[in-house]
């Protein structure tokens, strides 16, 4: 492909489309595009679209106004929105948690890829900071969401991962060790607004140690996440 990029062209059906100087509700409208005129969609940032008019004027239009434009074939211009519908069915999720991992303070982040509204593959990374030991953990697993269309929906998780525990030097056996883990858990997610939701989660880990018996650790965490 060579030459200029091809942009999507949409037509204004409302009496006018106001263009703002910046991608925010406070930026003033400096130009209006009349009905039946078209604009090219250059880019999108959060809830704003940067467009170029037939005369070459560039400005930002809010997504609620862009929803009322149509494509060249007359079909409405549609795109993903940060709303309840998006909460029910989306592709990606990311979030940050604070919590407790076997008595240590936990900082954790996760990303998920939804295979369908109910099932998602999740990758979570965390670091725990305790009085006796510090450590990091990485996990990969599945999350099954029950009733994804509800504002408050429960979910169950199952997965596996690794944990690296670094006991503090004052302890008797200060050996750094990495072990495989498996976890099972559940939690609740609650839709807040736009693309945000709260997520609280409990996991029970089994650490497959090289010693005679396995260790079990409880993890509680709470945080917020967003979908896109």
């Amino acid at each position, binding site marked *: 492909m060579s030459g200029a990029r091809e942009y999507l062209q949409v037509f204004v059906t409302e009496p006018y489309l106001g263009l703002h100087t*910046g991608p925010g509700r406070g930026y003033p409208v400096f130009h209006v595009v009349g009905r039946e005129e078209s604009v090219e969609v250059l880019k999108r*940032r959060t809830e704003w679209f940067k467009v170029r008019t037939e005369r070459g004027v560039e400005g930002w239009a809010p997504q609620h106004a862009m929803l009322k434009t149509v494509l060249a074939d007359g079909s409405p211009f549609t*795109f993903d929105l940060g709303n309840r519908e998006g909460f029910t069915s989306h592709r990606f999720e990311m979030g*940050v948690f604070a919590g407790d991992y076997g008595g240590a303070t936990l*900082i954790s982040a996760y990303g998920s890829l939804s295979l369908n509204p109910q099932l998602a593959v999740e990758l979570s990374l965390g670091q725990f900071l305790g009085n006796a030991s510090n450590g990091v953990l990485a996990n990969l697993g599945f999350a099954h969401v029950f009733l994804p269309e509800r504002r408050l929906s429960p979910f169950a998780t199952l997965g596996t991962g690794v944990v690296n525990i670094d006991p503090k030097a004052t302890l008797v056996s200060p050996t750094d060790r990495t072990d495989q883990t498996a976890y099972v858990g559940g939690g609740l997610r609650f839709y807040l607004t736009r693309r945000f939701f709260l997520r609280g989660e409990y996991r029970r880990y089994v650490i497959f140690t090289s010693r005679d018996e396995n260790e079990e650790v409880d993890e509680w965490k709470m945080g917020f996440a967003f979908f896109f």
Partner: protein
Amino acid sequence: MENGLRVLLLMLAAGALAGCASVRAWLDRDQTAQEPQTLDDLVIAEQEDTLAPPPRVIEPEVERRRIKRPKIDTENVEIGVHYGALSIEDFGTNPSYGVSAAYHVTEDFFLRAELGRSTAGRTSFETLAGDVQLLTGDERYFTYYSLSLGYNFLPGEVFLGRGLAMNSAFYLIGGIGSTEFAGDHRFTVSFGAGYRVLPTDWLAVHVTVQDRVFESDLLGRSKLTNNIEAYVSATVFF
């Protein structure tokens, strides 16, 4: 060369197919144009209609062309580098540097992950006592990461003379993370504020001040230490 020939042949084929279709349409039109003249003709025509198989619907032989919708470039991710000064409590102020990545979720909120490092200087005790070293070389590295939520508190515009206006925002930011300092990791809470100016749509320059607070018992007593960092960063949106 070969591609050109292929395109030419394809065009010819498409043209021929379209041509055949239109010729058939003309023939059909000729047949329908013959109108019954008398009542007898009408009856015969009706009988023929009931006997004859229903007229064959012309099936399109050329597949409908799928219109490809150009993809819209979504620019919600911002990555960048920063450089500034970090005041490590009891260890003086030293240069700091790092990287950051942010995702703009809505026009108001964004999430930012930061990773940075500085090297602690000498405490006043070490300076006065002469040959005393509280920390070894590696322990002097102050390495932190933070996961924060930012809120664009005061969006606006900056005017440079008559002809240039740049978008800007004042934001508040707060989060959690960890700091590795003096041979230990510590849970760290960070909060602060920043100011962002965008010379173009995709480039931003920030000035940020953040306090990174954690509990430390390095100098005997356990206390909350405030480590204030002020830095300039350049980020790009993509």
